[in-house]
Every structure is written in C-alpha cells, then in structure tokens.
C-alpha cells in the first residue's frame, strides 16, 4: 500500500517537474521586450526599437535647485558588476552594479520578471549635510527625444516611441523631465540613504 502511494506521489512530482521545467524553458526562450546590457559604467535596457534607457550612477545628483548641485558619483573608484566572466559561476537572473568612491556607495539591481516587466532597485548611501529642500535625484536617460506623460494612475508615467510603450511606476513619484525631452529625473527628499523601487513595463510591437 505504501508503495502505491509512493508511486502516486512520484508520478505527481514528475508531472509537476515537467510543468516547472517547461515553464523555466519558456521563460528563457520567450521573446522579450528588452535586453539588459550590464557592461560599462551603466546599466542599459535595450529596447527592440533600437533605442535604449540608460541608468548610470554618474548622473545621480544632489540639489536644492539654488546653490547646491553635486554629483556624488562623478568620480568612481570602484565598480563591480555580476556580468564578468567568472561571475558566470554565480549566475542569477538579475543584473547588478555596485559603484563607490571614498564616501558614497550605490547599488543597482535590475530583475526581469517576465518578458514585459522588470524591477529596478537603486539603493544609494551618500554623505552630504542635510539642508531644507535638498533632493537626491536619479536619471533614466532615453536615447531618443520623447514625451513623458503622467498616466493618471498614481505613481505611473509613461512614454511612447517607435512602437514601444514604457511605463515607469514609482510609488513615491516626484519627477522632472529635462529640456531635451530625453531624461526623466526621479527625486527623493535627501537623506543619507535613499532607496528607489521602480517597476518598468515595456510593451513593444513585435
């Protein structure tokens, strides 16, 4: 009797295994609306319309829009990525960049969820003196001129270009767009540790 139940359990487990394996394979081979490039001193989300979104620590800035305008990662003394050759032995499904200089550290993680969605997490630790109205800002630089629009839904702005629609969800949305219409600036009130948990949804016509 025990063997019967074990056999039954085994068959159930194997069928579940088939489902999980096919699912994993499908996730790997399916068409993706983006490709992450994590090679130089930035993280790039390449879109199928030949354009890309670049996220680089060098563009982070701290400003009070009056006197102060500092780029904490203008000079980087150490940058690490999980895309180097030997890192293949710790290969995971996310893309990681760590940048630092003497006083400041910044970690960026992009985790693709499926073929349309990805999570972007930025955790920045900097050492500046607090001042009223001081902001920490990161930039999402799009390679083409575009129009960023507020979607009407809380925290979501989007842009459309060459058949791709990119939605950016920031639960604490406070943003600006630069004059050249290429850069989205996401701001936070300054504190020594600033965190961003963004969700990007990318839909492109195949």
């Amino acid at each position, binding site marked *: 009797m025990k063997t019967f139940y074990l056999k039954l*359990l085994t068959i159930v487990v*194997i069928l579940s*295994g088939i489902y999980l394996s096919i699912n994993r394979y499908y996730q*790997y081979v399916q068409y993706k609306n983006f490709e992450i490039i994590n090679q*130089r001193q930035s993280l790039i989300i390449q879109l199928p319309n030949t354009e890309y979104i670049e996220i680089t620590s060098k563009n982070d800035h701290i400003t009070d829009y009056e006197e102060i305008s500092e780029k904490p990662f203008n000079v980087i003394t150490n940058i690490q990525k999980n895309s180097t050759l030997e890192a293949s*032995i710790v290969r*995971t499904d996310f893309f990681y960049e760590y940048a630092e200089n003497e006083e400041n550290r910044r970690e960026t993680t992009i985790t693709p969820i499926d073929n349309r969605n990805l999570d972007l997490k930025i955790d920045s630790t900097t050492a500046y003196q607090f001042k009223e109205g001081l902001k920490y800002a990161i930039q999402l630089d799009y390679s083409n001129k575009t129009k960023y629009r507020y979607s009407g839904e809380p925290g979501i702005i989007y842009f459309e270009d060459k058949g791709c629609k990119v939605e950016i969800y920031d639960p604490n949305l406070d943003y600006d767009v630069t004059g050249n219409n290429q850069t989205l600036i996401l701001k936070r009130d300054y504190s020594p540790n600033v965190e961003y948990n963004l969700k990007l949804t990318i839909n492109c016509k195949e």
Partner: protein
Amino acid sequence: MFDAISLTINIGMLGYFMFSLFTGGLESFANNYVFIGYLIFTTLTLPNFLARVIFKSRIFGFVSALSFLYFPIQFLLQVIVANLTGLSLSEILPFGVIFNLILWNVLFLLFVIGDNKSGNESEFTLGEILSGMLPAIIYVIFTFVLIRQRDSVVALDYLQHLTVPNKMFNDGILCILPGQCSNLFLQHGYTTFYHLVFGNLSTFIGTNSIKTFYMLDIVFPLVVSIPIYLKLKEITKSTLWSQLGVLLALLTFVMGGYDFVFFIPQTFALYLLILALREKELKLPQLFFISILLVSTHFIIGTVFAGYLWFRFLIIRNLKTRKEKTVFLLLLLLSVIFFCLANIAGFSTEKLLQEEAVKVIGSLTNAYYPSNLTVYIQNLGAGWLLVIVAYFSVLINRKRDVEDLSLLSFITFGISFYFLAPTYANKFAIGLGFFATILIIKYLWKLGFKPAMKIVLFMLLVPIWGLNYFVQYSRYLTFYTQEDGTASAIVKEDEAIIEYLTENNLTDRFIVSDPYTQIIIASLGNIDTVNAQYMPLETRENLLRYLENPSAQTYEQLLTSPGIPAREDITILYTSRLHRSIELNDQAWLYNVYSLPTNNSYSINEVGKYLIEDQERLNNDLIYISDNFVLLK
C-alpha cells in the same frame, strides 16, 4: 558480437589514420577531429586497460583510478631519458604519446584475445561499455548540435592549465606544482598530476589546442558515462534504468562544479572518485591511496572527496541499527536547515574569514540570499523534488540501505559547504549530478514500475533534465557570447596575434597587455605575461595610466607594479581592448580580477602621439600586427 564491433571500430579508425597519413601527411593529424577524439579517448581509458590487463583488476574501479599514475611515472622516465641522452623534452614527449597509443591498442587486443581462451568476459564487458556510452552519445548530439558552436572553447580554465604542459614541453621545466611552471596560478590548488594527463592530450603531441579543448568536451562525457553506467547497473541490474541514470547525470549542468561538462582538475577528481566508488567497500590501504590521489588532483575538492570517503568508512559503514540510521538521516536534514539558515542570517566564510582573498579578487565571489538559493536550486531544477521524495522514502522505509545514506551524505556535504560560503562556494556543488541521479534512479527502481510505466517515466524525466540543462548551459554561455554572436572564449580578432607569435619567436619576451589578451597569448603563444587573466588590479591601473599619460614616471610606475619581474624588460602589446577602454573611458576591468572584456574589435585607428614619443624614448618601434594589435617592441 561486441568484441567484433569494438575491434571493427578500432581497426576502422586505424585504417582511416593510415589513409589520412598518405593523403594529408603527418601534419594533418594536428587538426584532425577524429584523431584528436581518438587520442583523448585512448589516453583517458588507457588506465582502465592497464588495470584490467596488467593488474588483473576490474576495468573501471579503484585500480584504474590509481593507474592514472602511469602518466606521471612515464613523464619522469622521459625526463630521465632526456637527461641521459641530452635530448630536449620537446623531442622526447611526442614519442611518449605515440607509445601510449600503441600500448592502448596492444592492451585492447590482449583484453579481447586473451580473454577468448578462458571465457566470454571481454564480450560482456565491451557490451556493457557500449550500453553505457549509448546515452552519452545522445547527450553529445544534444549538446553539440543544439547548444555548442563548432570549435568553441567555453572554459578559460583550459587556456590557463595549458600553460603548464606548454612550459614543461617547450622549456623543459619539471614542476610538481603548476605555480612552479607558470605564473598563472596565484594559489596552489593542485599538483601537476592533472596537467601531465592534459599534456598527453594536447601539447606533448602538438595537436591544435582549440580543437583539442572542443573534442575533450565531447569525449570526456563519453568516458565518464561508463563507470556511471556500471555503478547504476550494479545497483539496479537494469540496463534501461542505468542508461536513464547516465543520461540524467550528464544532463545536469552544475554552475561552478561543471561535473562532466569540462575536463578540469575538479572534474577529473570527480571522475577518480566515481571510479573509486565502483568498489563496494574500500579497504584502509585503498582508502589511503585514493585519498592521496584525490588530494593531489585538487587540494580542496579532492580533499572534500577524500573526506567523504573517510566519512563513509568511519561513520556510515558503522551505522547498524535502524535507530542510528534514523538519527543520522535527521542530522543530515538538520545540517541542511542549519547551514541554510545561517547563510540567510548573514554568515559567510568569505565575508568573515577571507577578507584578504576577497580584497585581491576585488569583490565577493558568491551570490547571497536569495540569489544563492536560486542558483543552487537551478543546478538540478525540478529534479530536487525527486531528491526530496527519495529522502523521505529512505526515512520512512523499514530497510535502510547504507548506500542511500552515503548518497544523501554527499548531497548534504555539498549543500553545507555551499552555504558556508567560502570563496567560490559553488565549486562545492560538484558531484550533485552524479549523486542525486543515483539516489533518484535507485528510488524509482525500487518502486518497481511496470515496463510500460518505466518507458513513460523515461519519456518524462529526460525532458525535465534536458530542459533545465539547456537553460543552465545557455545561460552559462552568455558570458562567452561575443558581439557577433560567437559563444567562445576564442575571439576571431585574436587569431592575428597568435599567428604573429607563431611566426615570430618572442618566447623570451615578457609581454604586458590587457588581462584577456594575456591569457590568450600565454596559453596559445607560450608567452610570459603579468599573471595573464589574473593581472593584479594595481598593475592594470598602472598600465592604463601609462597608456593614457605616457611618461618616464608612469612607465617606471608600471615597471615596479606587482607581477612584473624586477629588472625585466617588458614589451607592451597595445590591443583593441585597451584602446576601447581609453577611448570610451570604460574602466570596469580595473576593479575586479575577473572583469575581462572579451571583444577585441574596436579598431585601433591611431595610437596616441605621446605614447609613440615615449616609446621612441625607450628605443621601441611600433609594429602594427592587425587593426587590433600594436606591439611596442
């Protein structure tokens, strides 16, 4: 029949070689895939025939593992002959390889013919060998048709290890540790035992290195499949279950461990362990010898394997009562939970105790929770579900086989070491494919499925493993995928420098370049470099600083950098990788030892005028080798 098939295949091969000799000449063998494959197969199985024919032991077992010592002994004899005759090792070593080929054929013939007088043993054994290799052939077709590209080299380890037999061959250096021969080994991880076997497959006979690496990835799984099959056959007595086991074991891509995917010291140690495990019970002297062999193959992984054998011998073998075995099984489970939770809580050996090593490397070498959990699970994928079921089946079963406890112990060891997280913890996942597969096959076999159901299971299990293997391997290859889509460590543009180095003897030069170019020229051009791909971070920085601001001061700084021998004249090889780094301000390669830009296509349109001037000051000329290489000589 199997005697006849094996003999026919072998005679066919020899006939083909004779034909090739007459049509293409002796040189053609260097690039002949069939010859390279045959050389690898005969070299790796020579110890098996030595064990069977000479030592009258089982063909795949403990003695055949020890018989690998034939290669170091042969090498020592060749060194003695070289000293007595005054000939160089490069003149003598090729004859050793040819001798081995002849010896293999003689032993093979003796195995078949000698046996015919007394019985039918060779017929049976060769039948079993071919049965074991059948699933490996399916595996090879699957891998090399769907995943790998022709002549692709997807393990830099091959290039690194090649420098050792190269030095032995070209410079006549005898070394016990690879670091004595080559400056590519910053830590002593093994003796040159592996390298002597490796040399017999490549350098000593002068076959094309890239083709040899490629064929090695094809032939090694074929060889390994035999003892895996024999082990499973011993347990299940079933050809089908055993063949399924071989296929599943081969279809496990262990990130960092690489079980049967590459022939490197750690996988060689695993192969020796599998051979040793063919013995039902290793006696004390056997245990002693195999431990030495394993440790000398790989100081860390080999020691873990040896420790595992001693653990079997001292602990598992002495578990007699059901209660003892239950406690033991629960302890294994507790260990897994404990080490896993400790890691989640933040414990990590490399973070706490190996700060110095981490500093040299430039970053942590392991993934951390939750990524590390994902990485480990992905090694076996859905196969873990069956491991868990098998574990609980052993736990609730009245009769507990010691073999099951051994298999589960090994898996527990692997998990525990992995979550202890010393540097390169994922190497400790090695062997997972073999031990988990044996456990699963044994469990499934014991359930006694009817033949029709067996076939259905076969049809379901292969896709589970196959899909996971495909994804794992493909993900691994992304790191070797170049901008033109080629998935190989060998970059097309680098061929120019190899060709140049082959035509112009620069072996007396100490070349400084970017780390990736250094590993290429060190292994394929036998050139001394600054620790090749392990070029110290400070030296990388000083090289870049000199190239960006060439002056007497920055040059002096470069000359006194770590890894550059004192009073040595250096020759700088300016590459597209360096040029791109300067032009695009891409300095990621300066911060981590393993940060190696692979692509070398960014054309060097112009070398900076200050660099030219400073090289003139040093009386060096600029030799334009190709669009991607300029030698400052």
